[in-house]
């Protein structure tokens, strides 16, 4: 079966993990890995896995986009360079899946709103953050039952799973995730907290989701909605598991999740890495399925 050819930009933890995910996909094929350091381990690993590589950044990829038939690119660099990367590739008709906190395109959480984005043929969709992917489905599961006045999430991450980019830019992570709790999760107000825990052996990613409902929570309906949402997420992240809750305290609904990864690039504790790459892969697959079926056609954007 024909597959849609993909480029990966950024050869760190996320880019590398994506290679594994794309190689398993029935509709996606990883072809290029873009880095900025010729001596980087990430590029060497990509070459070993059969990808073409460039150390010249996105500009090193551009001349090959048409000849190699690249239609989808994943950006796992930083919020600061994403806008330029996206502009250059969109002009060539390449659709961008953005894994940085740049969020210039619409925010995407697959079980909540992927269908809408595919229907609108968005040329850039943003994957928010690992914490966003792990918590927004639950916030949405509550807000589709009754209005949520405030959603607050806490993501606990193993120190070894957090790369230097995220560490140096924690505020961007906080802002993007908080904003997405509202825009995608459906809460009226949102707040995201991140904790980096250095315990050895590394702790598995944990997420606590608290929602304050408007009026008394409709407990039975919320429990049903949350449990069925968890099954939706498990379709692409099998290690997404409920630990405790939903538990109710007045208007507060609390859900305690654990996310184990598949152990592709980093060990299973790094569920944060997996949920991000799996969501990005799922998103690209939906676009790819439509392209292959001929129901959508990617078009080059107008040069600005």
């Amino acid at each position, binding site marked *: 079966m024909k597959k849609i050819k993909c480029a990966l930009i950024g050869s760190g933890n996320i880019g590398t993990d994506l290679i594994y995910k794309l190689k398993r996909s029935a509709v996606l094929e990883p072809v290029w890995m873009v880095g900025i350091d010729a001596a980087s381990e990430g590029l060497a690993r990509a070459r070993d896995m059969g990808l073409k590589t460039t150390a010249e950044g996105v500009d090193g990829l551009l001349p090959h986009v048409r000849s190699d038939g690249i239609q989808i690119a994943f950006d796992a660099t930083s919020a600061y360079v994403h806008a330029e990367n996206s502009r250059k590739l969109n002009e060539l008709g390449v659709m961008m899946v953005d894994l940085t906190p740049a969020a210039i395109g619409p925010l995407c959480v697959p079980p909540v709103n992927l269908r809408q984005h595919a229907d609108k043929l968005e040329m850039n969709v943003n994957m928010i953050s690992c914490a966003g992917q792990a918590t927004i489905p639950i916030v949405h599961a509550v807000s589709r039952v009754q209005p949520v006045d405030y959603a607050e999430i806490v993501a606990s991450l193993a120190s070894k799973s957090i790369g230097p980019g995220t560490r140096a830019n*924690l*505020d961007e992570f906080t802002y993007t995730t908080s904003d997405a709790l509202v825009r995608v999760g459906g809460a009226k107000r949102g707040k995201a*907290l991140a*904790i980096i825990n*250095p315990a050895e052996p590394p*702790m598995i990613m944990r997420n606590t989701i608290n929602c304050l409902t408007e009026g008394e929570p409709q407990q039975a309906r919320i429990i049903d909605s949350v449990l069925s949402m968890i099954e939706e997420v498990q379709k692409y992240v099998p290690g997404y598991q409920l630990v*405790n809750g939903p538990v109710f305290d007045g208007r507060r609904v609390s859900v*305690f999740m654990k996310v184990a990864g598949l152990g592709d690039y980093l060990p299973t504790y790094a569920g944060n890495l997996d949920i991000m790459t799996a969501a990005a892969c799922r998103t690209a697959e939906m676009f790819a399925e439509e392209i292959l079926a001929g129901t959508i056609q990617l078009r080059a954007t107008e040069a600005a």
Partner: protein
Amino acid sequence: MSTTRQEPELRGRKVLLHDMCLRDGMHAKREQIPVEQMVKVATALDEAGVPLIQVTHGAGLGGNSLQHGFALASNEAYLSAVAPKMKQAKVSVLLIPGLGTMRELQSAYDCGARAVTVATHCTEADTSPQHIAYARKLGMDTMGFLMMAHLNDPDGLAKQGKLMEDYGAQTIYVTDSAGYMLPADVRARVAALREVLKPETEIGFHGHHNLGMGIANSIAAIEEGASRIDGSVAGLGAGAGNTPLEAFLAVCDRMGMVTGVDLFKLMDVAEDVIVPMMDHMVRVDRESLTLGYAGVYSTFLLHAKRAAARFGVPAREILVELGRRKMIGGQEDMIEDTAMSMAKERGLLKDVGRKAA
């Protein structure tokens, strides 16, 4: 290592006292200190000559949350009320990256804060560069604060402190968040920092009194070169409280150290203002001693007591389990989670199920 140093060596040594009543003390008050009371306490501390006073939610900037509790007023409201009343004291705030952000730091500065403690877990200093740099850009007195310092060895802690110094921090703190450290632990860490930091970079020590070691540990830190000591009047702070500042000051006076703070006035603040505010006597008791003994974050104390009441598992057992699971500051959600998991194992709680369709 200098274990034989004698009292007179500290004579004339300058030590800056940094009071925590209105920040760490917020934990002990479940964040419920009214604005007027904050002003009253801060004014009394200012009058006694305390040069640096921390004022915010217990978890600092961005602290108002379900995770850490909602205070009676916003950080901005507290700061705007306190800062203009200070005659000589400078007001500091706490910022923990991942919770507080640069936007909130700017806002605190606009309300009169002129010093900031940027706090990370003792192995995660590299989550603080943007906040430390931003604080310096604002011209704030910028302190890097390595929490749960007992969980990193002296050399490891020194490397983390050096990172914060590189980002721009002017003081690096050894922070005994669990009140677990003994004087030898403090000495080794302060000495390791002194070894790698620039001479002009100050070293601070922030103690908790869970093992009753707050004063002894602070003196040990000074002997190795620390010059800033956090404490709180009457010990109002998380766990068994911070180093009781008036008692520490009395020791400083006896040893001939120079603080510029009036002992009798500070004693009066403790007795007449702070003690009457306490909801419970902040002291070494069964649970706070457990924190110090097991090395658990002091702020977990009241959360564990609440979870114990809700799920029927004793607070001491929850705290020990949190220590075993290596939970760190900021993971207060894991207290409820741990208590629920323990309650399930004991048959006190069941998993939720879907309604029969």
